[in-house]
């Protein structure tokens, strides 16, 4: 704001501007409520040459920044720190960095190079990340880095809201570092940046908990489809043709890939058949679904130590991929979010391999788990191409019949936050409709079977058929953008069928060529960015 020669803070400026334009407070509020303003007259802006010099002066008068600048930001989950006491939110991976339980210094690839940090196999595959020291005046903080492609070369970003004391409870205590001291008051605004910081390599490493370590989808177009608007306009049928190609190759006679592309023959699925559709175009990676799923299904919180070991339990996760140039990974063209949960495959590879029949297919198309029957061979998880099955590595929820096995004096340690589930008050957060799983048991998304059951029973009690949209999964309910659609795919009139039918050019199933027949479909992401990628056109390779 200073650059424009205006000393008001942005909020005030914004309000004043719009109130002036719309005529009064109430009109402004109405516009906010509607989310749009009807342009009454196309009054083009006029160029005011005189103002330019004042802007230039203002820019020049802004204190000269050093080489490196520190930006403080808020994470979606933790916010300014208000969410820090909530284990669900602490465990929620950040939308972009996929890190949780703590803050770290986000730096650019160029900065990493400058600091002599090699982005090699060690960096990617080990949670130990180099620690840097950021200093500004008297304030300094040492935090492990995470390199984010596409960042401004000399900007360092650190999330606020961490580094809380013991008094706030065992969840937030000692997690991350407090970087509020770097914020400064300028006038009556808080400046969330420190424009002149020195960055030095602290010559040590610290572990950073991440739930995803690889950034690119490696051109695996069978996994997900995304492209630019320009390209899509040119080749609107590419996704459709790719799917058609499967039919042409493997279902020459009948054109039915499901029935002909198999040696098995199909099982009858009379009645209901649940399906889900996710519109990747609408998904903005806000993570609401992840928390909703966590809360609804009693998914255990495992704490930092376990996340570091890649033991996180999320049934639903949001895969984040950077789209960037293969030769220049720093050149980020976009980010894709792909919510990923059990795909409830009709030909599920996981079901085949369970020795004790703990996971089978229901007649409603749900891949179901019988926790009581599970003996924990983990074979199903190995054979799941989507890697959505989660194993209870330890007694996270205190559900075991063994009283003292959380008291680990010799063997591996769990973070204190996990033990909250041992106290009766904390256990009140548990959803009574959902079983709490004991250790050694595999679990995964059930399409919120307790909700579908509930809806079915309700309909049965009232002696009527189930209405479309009556059963909603937790993630669907939480999604602010309505990216998730869920319903009975045998019902021709259902929303989900309509969505699938109306979007043939974007509809795809992840890894459809494997013929595992997922019940979750996706709509391709069309990025509204310029440029038509060359080559095969689906992406500009990953970084």
């Amino acid at each position, binding site marked *: 704001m200073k650059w424009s020669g205006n000393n008001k803070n942005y909020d005030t400026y914004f309000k004043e501007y719009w109130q002036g334009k719309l005529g009064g407070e109430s009109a402004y509020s109405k516009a906010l409520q509607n989310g749009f303003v009807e342009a009454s007259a196309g009054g083009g802006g006029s160029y005011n040459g005189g103002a330019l010099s004042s802007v230039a002066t203002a820019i020049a008068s802004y204190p000269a920044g050093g080489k490196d600048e520190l930006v403080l930001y808020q994470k979606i989950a933790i916010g300014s720190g208000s969410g820090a006491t909530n284990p669900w939110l602490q465990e929620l991976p950040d939308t972009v960095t996929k890190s949780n339980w703590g803050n770290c210094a986000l730096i650019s690839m160029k900065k990493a190079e400058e600091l002599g940090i090699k982005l090699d196999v060690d960096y990617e595959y080990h949670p130990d990340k180099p620690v840097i020291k950021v200093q500004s005046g008297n304030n300094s903080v040492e935090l492990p880095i995470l390199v984010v492609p596409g960042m401004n070369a000399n900007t360092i970003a650190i999330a606020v809201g961490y580094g809380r004391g013991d008094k706030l409870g065992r969840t937030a205590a000692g997690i991350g570092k407090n970087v509020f001291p770097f914020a400064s008051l300028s006038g009556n605004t808080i400046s969330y940046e420190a424009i002149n910081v020195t960055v030095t390599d602290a010559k040590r490493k610290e572990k950073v908990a991440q739930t995803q370590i690889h950034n690119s989808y490696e051109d695996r177009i069978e996994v997900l489809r995304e492209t630019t608007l320009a390209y899509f306009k040119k080749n609107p049928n590419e996704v459709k043709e790719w799917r058609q190609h499967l039919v042409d190759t493997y279902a020459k006679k009948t054109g039915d890939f499901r029935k*002909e*592309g198999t*040696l098995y023959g199909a099982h009858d699925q009379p009645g209901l058949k649940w399906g889900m559709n996710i519109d990747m175009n609408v998904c903005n990676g806000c993570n609401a679904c992840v928390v909703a799923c966590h809360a609804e299904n009693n998914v255990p919180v495992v704490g930092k130590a376990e996340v570091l070991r890649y033991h996180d339990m999320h049934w639903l996760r949001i895969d984040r991929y950077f789209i960037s140039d293969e030769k220049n990974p720093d050149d980020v063209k976009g980010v894709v979010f792909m919510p990923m949960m059990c795909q409830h495959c009709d030909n599920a590879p996981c079901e085949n391999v369970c020795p004790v029949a703990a996971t089978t297919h229901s007649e409603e198309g749900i891949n179901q788990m019988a926790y009581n029957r599970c003996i924990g061979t983990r074979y199903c998880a190995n054979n799941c191409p989507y890697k959505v099955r989660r194993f209870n590595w330890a007694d996270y929820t205190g559900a075991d019949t063994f009283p003292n096995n959380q008291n680990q004096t010799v063997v591996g340690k769990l973070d204190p936050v996990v033990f909250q589930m041992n106290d009766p008050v904390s256990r009140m957060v548990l959803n009574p409709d959902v079983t709490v799983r004991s250790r050694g048991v595999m679990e995964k998304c059930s399409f919120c079977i307790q909700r579908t059951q509930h809806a079915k029973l309700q309909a049965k009690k009232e002696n009527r058929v189930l209405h479309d949209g009556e059963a909603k999964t937790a993630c669907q309910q939480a999604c602010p953008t309505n990216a998730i659609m869920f319903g009975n795919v045998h019902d021709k009139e259902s929303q989900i069928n309509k969505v699938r039918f109306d979007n043939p050019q974007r509809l795809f199933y992840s890894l459809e*060529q494997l013929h595992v027949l997922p019940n979750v479909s996706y709509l391709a992401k069309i990025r509204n960015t310029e440029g038509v990628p060359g080559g095969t056109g689906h992406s500009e390779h990953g970084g």
Partner: protein
Amino acid sequence: MSTVEKFIPSKKYNTTAFILMAVGLLAAIVLYITTHGAAATPEEQQAKSAVFWAALLQNSVFFLMICNATMFFMCATALAWGGWQIAFTRVTEAVSSMVPIIGVIAVVILLSIVYGGNHVIYHWTDAAHVEHDSVLNFKKGFLNPTFFTVVTILTVLLWSLLGWQMRKLSRSTDETSWKNPKQKYNFQFKNTVTAGLFMIVFALTVMSSIPWLWLMSIDAHWFSTMYSWYTFASTFVSGVAVITLFVIYLKNKGLLGIVNEEHLHDLGKFIFAFSIFWTYLWFSQFMLIWYANIPEETVYFQSRTKGLYSIVFWTMFVINFIVPLLIFMSRDSKRNYTIVTYVALLVIFGHWLDFYQMVFPAVSPDKAPNLLLILGVALFFVGLIIYFVGRTLSKYSLIASNHPFVKESVIHHT
């Protein structure tokens, strides 16, 4: 009896061979005529004539690989320092001497297919098609005419050369007089080294590249790591069956005095054991693909287990597995010349059918070609083998009477 016995092919023997060859040629001509008639479109014409070429391909490759499997039998037993098989080693050698003869025929046929301009059998020879087919385009470093030609010719050449060397070594014993066991050991050593060399060549050809190039590339998109080992098992059983048939024939003529039912029993055991081995490989390949159910792999069995070719597919399975299993399980049947003869014949036919179902579902997916005509073509090769094996047998002593291990073979006892 004299151990320097020789087989002199009778007139009847040779006539039979020539008649079979003639029938085979006739069948080929008939097949040519029926597949080269007028057709509505050039594509249809190509598809029709491909059946003719595929028949030649199937038969020449099948019989070439059988004869080469007898080479394998010879070399493997040599490597293992086996003694029992020496009694009839000249028969094995005679069958293996067919490799260069059928080899030349097979090379001519294969190269005619690759360069003949008909791309129905080998899609990957069609440069224009490969351009548009991303999978074939990806593979063209392997599936291209030049590589195919070089490997094919080199392979047949190496097989012939090493076989010639093995046979020469064996025949050299006829003139040698051993002075001490050390000399015998040295001979065995030389024999082992040659056999070892062949094994290396064998591993790089039959156990890997050759079946991929000659047969698997007919279903050019499809792939299976087991394929080459599987085809090897198929031809090896047939190869042992061919040796058995010649041994029985010579026994019937009152020759091969030192061969008795103990040897027959062991040949029977080989057919039994390797039929089960073949089944094992068949099952492993089939079940694994069936189980994972990934279309890019199941597509191969789609065309074989369902529809037109399913009868052939299951018939050959029954012949190649159930027949030897049930009949050869008992000791007595393996020692009965008549039963062994019939089982050997059936087994060869069964594996011929196996090759038939490897080739034709991809070449002619919508119309199963006339099995009898294609079987007719096989008779040409049968005649050829009968004639030339007879000729080779007549040139040398039937018993390697001076071989270091021949006495072990005499007292062989199961």
